């Protein structure tokens, strides 16, 4: 199994009653690679991870993890994977150390190994001081770290991380990113799901964008950015009421459909800084007052927007539906 990919999924579909959560999803993760599964809530990310980690059976399609069939050889798959879900899957009343020992024992590893490995993981994840306290006394970030430690007890070849930082504060998120990057440096294959474009950009070499249960784009962050063209112009007007008019005015200088969000207009352009001058002239002609104007490389936000026509982060859960960046859920 040296040359085969860590994960190979072909035509995976999964329906829940009437709802098609996955619809012919293909996915390949090479060994040692970090692949980010990017998509909004309900795109099918979690369903895909649950199928690959044997928690759910696909209604159609075929998937192999480490060369084992996820349906027919579920137990062999379980021996090679680690899974960290969206919710910290640890026992609240057990201490951090007891949790790790329990999962190690259930992995059928020797007590001596489990003991040493637990101590090592607790130290690595900065949980030494809390090791002998019940997990319910832990902060959200500590629980996530314990949860991740629990999935690493048997040194899995392949790690599934389902929204590993959802609900964490920015500091804990950075800590989590560090931990994940360290694991990757050690050679662990990682498939992570996220709805944060920034996170996919930070952690994953290869990004698979999914929406409505199938892949809509695939590539490195750079490739995806190139796919929607070069630079983008971003204009901020003082009043969102004039944004529509500003977009219209920009029509002659930009090279693609402008996107309006609140009082911000962004659009792909070609021609570098000359465009800036043209844009300012066009706006001035319409007597539109602007507060900011800039040229920038496209972000994954733009990629998602241009691919799907809607934003990556889920609208219903965000405090303000119109703000895009800087808005963090919970």
């Amino acid at each position: 199994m040296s040359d085969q990919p860590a994960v190979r999924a072909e035509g995976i579909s999964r329906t829940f009653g009437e709802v098609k959560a996955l619809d012919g999803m293909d996915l390949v993760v090479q060994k040692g690679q970090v692949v980010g599964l990017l998509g909004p809530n309900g795109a099918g990310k979690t369903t895909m991870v649950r199928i690959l980690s044997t928690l759910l059976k696909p209604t159609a399609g075929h998937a192999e993890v480490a060369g084992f069939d996820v349906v027919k050889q579920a137990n062999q798959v379980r021996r090679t994977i680690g899974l960290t879900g969206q919710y910290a899957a640890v026992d609240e009343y057990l201490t951090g150390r007891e949790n790790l020992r329990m999962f190690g024992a259930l992995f059928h590893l020797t007590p001596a190994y489990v003991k040493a490995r637990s101590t090592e993981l607790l130290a690595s994840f900065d949980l030494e001081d809390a090791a002998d306290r019940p997990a319910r006394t832990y902060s959200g970030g500590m629980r996530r770290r314990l949860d991740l430690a629990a999935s690493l007890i048997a040194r899995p070849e392949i790690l599934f991380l389902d929204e590993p930082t959802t609900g964490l504060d920015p500091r804990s998120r950075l800590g989590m990113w560090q931990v994940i990057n360290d694991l990757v440096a050690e050679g662990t294959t990682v498939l992570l799901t996220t709805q944060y474009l920034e996170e996919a950009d930070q952690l994953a070499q290869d990004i698979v964008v999914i929406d409505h249960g199938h892949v809509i784009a695939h590539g490195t962050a750079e490739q995806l950015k190139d796919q929607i063209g070069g630079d983008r112009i971003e204009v901020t007007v003082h009043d969102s009421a004039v944004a529509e008019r500003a977009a219209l005015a920009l029509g002659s200088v930009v090279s693609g459909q402008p996107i309006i969000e609140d009082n911000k207009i962004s659009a792909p352009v070609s021609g570098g800084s000359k465009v800036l001058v043209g844009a300012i002239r066009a706006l001035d002609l319409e007597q539109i007052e602007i507060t900011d104007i800039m040229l920038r490389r496209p972000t994954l936000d733009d990629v998602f927007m241009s691919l799907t026509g809607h934003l990556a982060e889920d609208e219903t859960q965000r405090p303000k539906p119109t703000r895009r960046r800087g808005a963090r859920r919970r």
Partner: protein
Amino acid sequence: MSAITVGRPVASRRPIYGWALHDGFVVARRNLIQTLRVPELIFFSLVQPVIFVLLFAYVFGGAIPIPGDGASSADAANAYRQYLMPGIFGQTVAFAAAASTVGLAEDMSRGIIDRFRALPMSPSAVLLGRTFADAVRQILVLTVLSITGLLVGWRINNGIVSAILAYALLLFFAYTVAWVGAWIGLSVPNPETANTAGLVWLFPLTFLSNAFVPISSMPDWLQPIAAYNPISTLVLATRELFGNPTGIQPNYWSLDHAALYTIISCAVLIAIFAPLAVRKYRNATAR
């Protein structure tokens, strides 16, 4: 992350009793640790049976005659206490099923069940561990109840061996109903429903038995139902083993072979509900 000091994972050798039991014990240990860390849980699981002992012993005691023991009216209350305690034991171990229902429903509502299901462990371990731990907890409950009973005048009259057999039978029954409770816990949509669903079948089941009143005092049409209720035979067998008054038994095979009928019932119930629960567990996803 610090440098790696621990080598590759080392797999344990398969224990002679098999992985299912090994994993079941690991989960049972977790459930028992939980119990120790929430002393309130133990406290309240003891309060109800103790209150029942006191209520029945002092409030209803003299009002429920035990026929056939020829006790004088002055001894009636004491005779009833002798009669009552095995009934309370039987009721208490039956109600242990509710703890399995709620405990499992709570487990299923938490993320930890996903981790268990993604581990290469035995699929029945979570249920084996739950039922085993719930039965073990009954050792403590039965101890406290026995002490309460001794304080209100109950006595063990048939020697230590019979008494141990009586307790063993009670624990086997506790283990059996834990499987029924586990199956219910896996069938309900959430822990809130589990609270009701876990108890609702236990009231008719325990009161349609000889736990508190003799079967001979029931209407004719009800007698066969009570006679073949395994709680009746459990309580009757326990009374016989403790040497407590049994009252006059109507003529039913189950009552003539109370211990045997109880053991057979338990075996049949486990044979039905354990596979049902394991199948439900395998198909369940965390809710």
